[in-house]
């Protein structure tokens, strides 16, 4: 028996917020009477952290603490239109809509604060801790709570905002494919270290080193969740998953998690990630959505690593032990490649 080590590389970019459909998203922001803010969306949190990231975006744009913001998602009676959470559009489209809604609410908040403090609204700033103060004179201030109460009960004004973000649909030229598919891209490069058993064709992934460029890590822990979990999915796609193990033959399609394979808790691959942040000009605070792209470089990097380990090119997914073994047999055994 021999295990052969190999190292494979791949790099990718990924389109953020497809606009071939021209689908917009909207947001509404309003303050409670005591100066907390509700963000109403019909957008979906399916685990990627939509509620959490829009909450931070709203807090930043409003200039209030994140604890004073709550995001309600996806009631079609109260949340304004959103096409949905797909195509890496959540952060980009919804985030921008939330910024606009928050900006409008902030404008109203600052105007009321200005009246209360008897200054010009342009001379005011928020401290991000619940107060509004005169620039350069932090002691001349009013709390957001007092401002909201004054707005509603004294001035008869709401602190609320509407936001929509749309990039109109792009036609696709049928002769040349000319189009504006997106306005920004994420990037990643990744190196996988693995071993191949030349008697059984089994592959074991040992380590991943990667660099992911995400525009801005709006919440570094949410980014980490996506990158770690997404790369795991990449390993899973590369080596395990399919609903049709003998595609295009339809036989033996798995119907449970005993036969639909995903790597288990004992197969966690140590993954050393570097996050790069090059803000995108039309993205919310520069942040691009990291969630979709993270698996993509893992698949080819594994295939390339297997080639380096044993000299077998597997060009069909998933890369099962059987495919590796057939490749090994076809070339008369392992032929490790050295760089």
């Amino acid at each position, binding site marked *: 028996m021999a295990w052969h080590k190999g190292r494979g590389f791949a790099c990718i970019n990924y389109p953020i917020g497809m606009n071939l459909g021209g689908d917009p998203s909207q947001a509404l922001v309003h303050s409670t009477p005591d100066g907390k803010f509700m963000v109403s969306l019909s957008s979906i949190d399916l*685990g990627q952290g939509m509620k959490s990231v829009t909450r931070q975006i709203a807090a930043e744009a409003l200039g209030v603490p994140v604890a004073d913001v709550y995001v309600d998602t996806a009631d079609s009676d109260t949340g304004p239109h959103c096409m949905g959470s797909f195509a890496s559009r959540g952060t980009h489209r919804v985030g921008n809509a939330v910024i606009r809604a928050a900006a409008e609410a902030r404008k109203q908040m600052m105007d009321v604060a200005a009246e209360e403090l008897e200054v010009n609204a342009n001379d005011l700033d928020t401290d991000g801790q619940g107060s509004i103060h005169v620039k350069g004179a932090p002691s001349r201030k009013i709390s957001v709570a007092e401002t909201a109460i004054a707005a509603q009960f004294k001035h008869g004004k709401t602190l609320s905002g509407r936001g929509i973000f749309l990039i109109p649909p792009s036609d696709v030229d049928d002769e040349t494919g000319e189009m504006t598919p997106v306005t920004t891209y994420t990037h990643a490069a990744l190196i996988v270290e693995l071993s191949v058993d030349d008697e059984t064709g089994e592959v074991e992934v040992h380590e991943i080193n990667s660099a992911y460029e995400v525009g801005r890590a709006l919440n570094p*822990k949410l980014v980490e969740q996506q990158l770690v979990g997404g790369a795991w999915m990449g390993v899973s796609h590369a080596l395990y998953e399919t609903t049709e193990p003998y595609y295009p033959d339809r036989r033996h399609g798995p119907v449970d998690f005993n036969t639909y394979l995903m790597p288990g808790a*004992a197969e*966690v691959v140590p993954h050393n990630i570097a996050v790069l942040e090059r803000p995108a000009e039309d993205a919310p605070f520069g942040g691009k959505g990291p969630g979709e792209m993270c698996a993509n470089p893992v698949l080819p990097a594994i295939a390339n690593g297997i080639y380096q380990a044993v000299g077998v090119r597997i060009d069909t997914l998933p890369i099962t032990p059987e495919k590796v073994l057939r490749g090994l047999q076809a070339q008369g055994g392992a032929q490790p490649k050295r760089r």
Partner: protein
Amino acid sequence: MAKTPVTFTLNGASKSVFVEQGGNLLDELRRNVGDLSPKYGCGQGTCGACTVIVDGQPQLSCLTLSETIDGCDVQTTSGLANGPDLHPLQQAFMEGFAAQCGYCTAGMLMAAKVLLDRNPSPSREEVAEAISGNLCRCTGYEPIIDAILSAASGNLRRSS
């Protein structure tokens, strides 16, 4: 169709119910008792989202014939916190970003609790083994394993 009377303890409280013949504990808890913390993920015993603790053992509620729990002690994630005080595992999952969509979390916590109740300082391998029947599609498992180890070590920030 005749129903069968069953009495059991759920998170310390006595429950007496009439269960449907051939029905499973997951449906019983969710539809009749009103404990929504165990989740339906497969009905096959292959995902672990419905894991509960029966007499100290982890058990898949979707594969448990309801009437077999007569006289048993059943624990679910609904009963994991002590009033407002989170169980160390819950605290660790929260601080460790050990959940994304949250659908597997309740089952995962049950599997982890059985482990820590028996083995307060498990190794990383023992944690992986303990949650091996509980699938997670979001996290890649590592944050979950880290959170369980962190709960075991008592190394929590105990924040807020």
